[in-house]
């Protein structure tokens, strides 16, 4: 359910950026979301669509670029990337502890629209 608060934050950021750039209508909003954030893209799209009426992004489409979880294993000291939504052990050696290096992203990248 935290997707709703994230959708509202996205709309705040988009409304501010659109006003700053003189856009009256936003057509596309591009996000980057890492899998380690636990944010579900479908739930976020739904929350965004429910919340966008009355904003400059009322007709905007959300494009979500997902980033897989990557880490560096503390046991074998190698970098890995995993297609899984949860990573519990190093996929290379099975080591149980690692540092997450990618997958924590949660950002608005850019938006497209008309003045």
């Amino acid at each position: 359910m935290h997707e709703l608060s994230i959708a509202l934050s996205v709309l705040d950021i988009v409304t501010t950026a659109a006003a700053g750039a003189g856009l009256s209508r936003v057509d596309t909003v591009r996000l980057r979301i890492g899998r380690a954030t636990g944010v579900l893209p479908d739930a976020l799209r739904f929350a965004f669509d429910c919340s966008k009426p009355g904003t400059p992004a009322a007709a905007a489409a959300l494009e979500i670029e997902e980033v897989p979880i990557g880490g560096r294993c503390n046991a074998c000291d190698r970098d890995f990337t995993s297609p899984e939504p949860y990573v519990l052990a190093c996929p290379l050696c099975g080591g149980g502890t690692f540092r997450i290096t990618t997958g924590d992203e949660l950002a608005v990248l850019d938006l497209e629209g008309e003045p």
Partner: protein
Amino acid sequence: MKVKVVTNILKANARIAEENRRNLRERGITTINLMSSPGAGKTTLLARTIRDLGARVRFGVVEGDIQGTHDAEVIAALGVPVIQINTAGGCHLDANMVQSALTELPLEAIDLLVIENVGNLVCPAEFDLGEDAKAMLLSVTEGDDKPLKYPRMFRECEALLVNKIDLAPHLDVSLEKIRRDALALNPALQVFEVSARSGQGLEGWYAWLEGKLRA
């Protein structure tokens, strides 16, 4: 026309959390964000902690619940300043809710502020409130599979209280597996096996809490 933005979506929350942290630290207050699933024993633990340490430590409490004031009434009965936040359906507290609660607490009379988050093992882990440390409870009745099912919560916390251990003999639960899996996710985690009802094992938790106090 394309407009570059590149803004962290949780930036607003992070900024307010940082304001809370600065405000609380300047006043010498230590803040703990206490999290667990519903029914794990957060309020029972907190009430017992206040009774046992209240003579030495001045507590303040922020209670987060979807609705109702039950938890705040339990804490208020102990003579501790408490503010209840009702999230009205929201599954976690955020920094903004805590910021408004802080304006209603007598901060000059508080050494240790405990924020009891909404019962939920998922979303609360993702929102910084401005705390010094996150701590969590896992009750043995929830099962020993939880660290691997909710890894983020276990990774974010500094302390884990495995609660209701007085019930463990009646359950098919392995305290050893909980400890092993939680430490695999977070080797720096402090694990305390306790019963908030009987008081068993709470010394370690109290020592950890008192170690967090600012002089």
